[in-house]
């Protein structure tokens, strides 16, 4: 069999396996990918992962098909003699051309797609103190500001719209745009609210803003995603998205509960580091 015939067989095998498996991966596997559909941003990340997986599947199949085909078709059949290497392939301009075209096209498409997705609503990521991408809803209705304060080793949450009260746990109203202001009082942490699709680094002395648009009530896990010391693995919390009326009751109760501590809090600020230093330093 000639090289051209082998090539045609490989291409056919690749095409057939891609036509069968890519829709299965995209339609069956991808919808269950993290982080779920709990918020607009999380759902957007599932879409992004679906596109990436849909493009990666034929590429991976191309490698696998060629590998398996080579193992079968190009194996050494004569075991009595010396095993020799095959003839080198050099200077096939057609293959080189299409290789460059396809891979460049894929990379450029993904770069453009990723940029568009990122700029549409921020994709739940920390954007620093001057975010350039906010959810469309935030432009009409002011977002609810929540300051996430990381410290070794727990997150606390401050609410400038509710008298600057600080709380031990996080509850959010459903169907709302939330504007997280993530900062740290000591070392670098990372606020990762998995089911919300939010992940933003908490840097001392920095205000890192991330947006999320909640949909329906759900429970979400919060973890620190930056190795931050001996209890990093224990730095977690459980948050809840609740109906707006329930949130209103909750935040009112928190203001009463934490009234003594609120008196001692400094005025709301984007950052607090590094006061007080005192004994440390």
């Amino acid at each position, binding site marked *: 069999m000639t090289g051209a015939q082998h090539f045609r067989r490989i291409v056919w095998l690749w095409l057939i396996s891609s036509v069968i498996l890519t829709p299965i991966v995209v339609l069956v596997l991808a919808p269950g990918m993290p982080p779920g559909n709990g918020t607009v941003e999380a759902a957007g990340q599932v879409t992004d992962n679906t596109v990436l997986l849909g493009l990666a599947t034929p590429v991976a199949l191309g490698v696998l098909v060629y590998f398996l085909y080579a193992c079968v078709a190009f194996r050494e059949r004569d075991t009595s003699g010396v095993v020799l290497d095959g003839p080198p392939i050099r200077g096939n301009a057609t293959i080189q051309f299409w290789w460059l075209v396809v891979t460049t096209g894929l990379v450029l498409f993904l770069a453009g797609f990723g940029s568009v997705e990122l700029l549409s609503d921020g994709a739940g990521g920390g954007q620093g103190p001057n975010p350039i991408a906010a959810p469309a809803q935030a432009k009409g209705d002011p977002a609810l500001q929540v300051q996430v*304060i990381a*410290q*070794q*080793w*727990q997150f*606390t949450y401050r609410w400038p719209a509710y008298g600057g009260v*600080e709380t*031990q746990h996080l509850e959010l109203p459903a169907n709302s745009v939330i504007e997280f202001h993530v900062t740290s*009082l*000591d*070392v670098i942490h990372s606020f990762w609210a998995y089911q919300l699709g939010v992940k933003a680094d908490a840097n001392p002395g920095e205000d890192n803003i991330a947006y999320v648009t909640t949909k329906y009530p759900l429970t979400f896990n919060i973890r620190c995603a930056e190795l931050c*010391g*001996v*209890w990093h693995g*224990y730095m977690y919390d459980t948050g809840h998205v609740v109906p707006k009326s329930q949130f209103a009751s909750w935040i009112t109760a928190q203001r009463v*509960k*934490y009234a*003594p*501590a609120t*008196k*001692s*809090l*400094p005025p709301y600020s984007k950052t*607090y580091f*590094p*006061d*007080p*230093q*005192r*004994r*440390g*330093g």
Partner: protein
Amino acid sequence: MSSYGRRILWVTLATAIVCVAIGLYIGLYLTNVPGSQAATRGPAGVTNLYLGTVPAAELTDPHPTWVSYYVVNPTSTNWKHDTTFVLPANSLVHVTIYQFDGDSGLRNPFISQATGTVGGNFLLNGKPTVAIDPDSASHVFAIPAIGLSVPLEGVPDNAKNPCSNAPCPLSMDHETISFTFRTPAKGLYRWQCFVPCAAGFIQGFGGPMQTVGYMDGFIKVV
């Protein structure tokens, strides 16, 4: 034996020694955990846990300059340097902390309020207290997983008879903090201090704050 054979032998021997050394290092690290102390059960079914906080550990401690918690015998200076406390599940535990250290100040004033205790408060030298001045905090006893957090007032700077190293007799200047909390279900929970109290370390958060056995540990709920 040929020189090649000798070389192989030496390389094999050296590799074996290095592997054994690494294995010992990892094994000792994994098995070298602080001991634990069981709290005492009182007559009314309430468990009592007596703790102490000192500016510096015992002079015989590997880190005699490190601030530390201790399990305290209130009637003697027979203290135990353990920070894993064994407590019964779903029970009331009455904690008394004899606090001998000066203030360091809280980085987050929010933690100056007690949370998770029975009644939402604690006794500071016998006086019911909900929150203290954040700048006067010396330490915190907190179990974040169950929302328990109690700030510990520091001994004033002008104390006449301060204690430096453990164990400290109760005749020396100290603050007494007591509170009651309900233990959760069986399991292992970490506790920690939230005051950056590690003198001499960057931002006060190194050394004893990062080492189980000093300013943090576990409660083993059984």
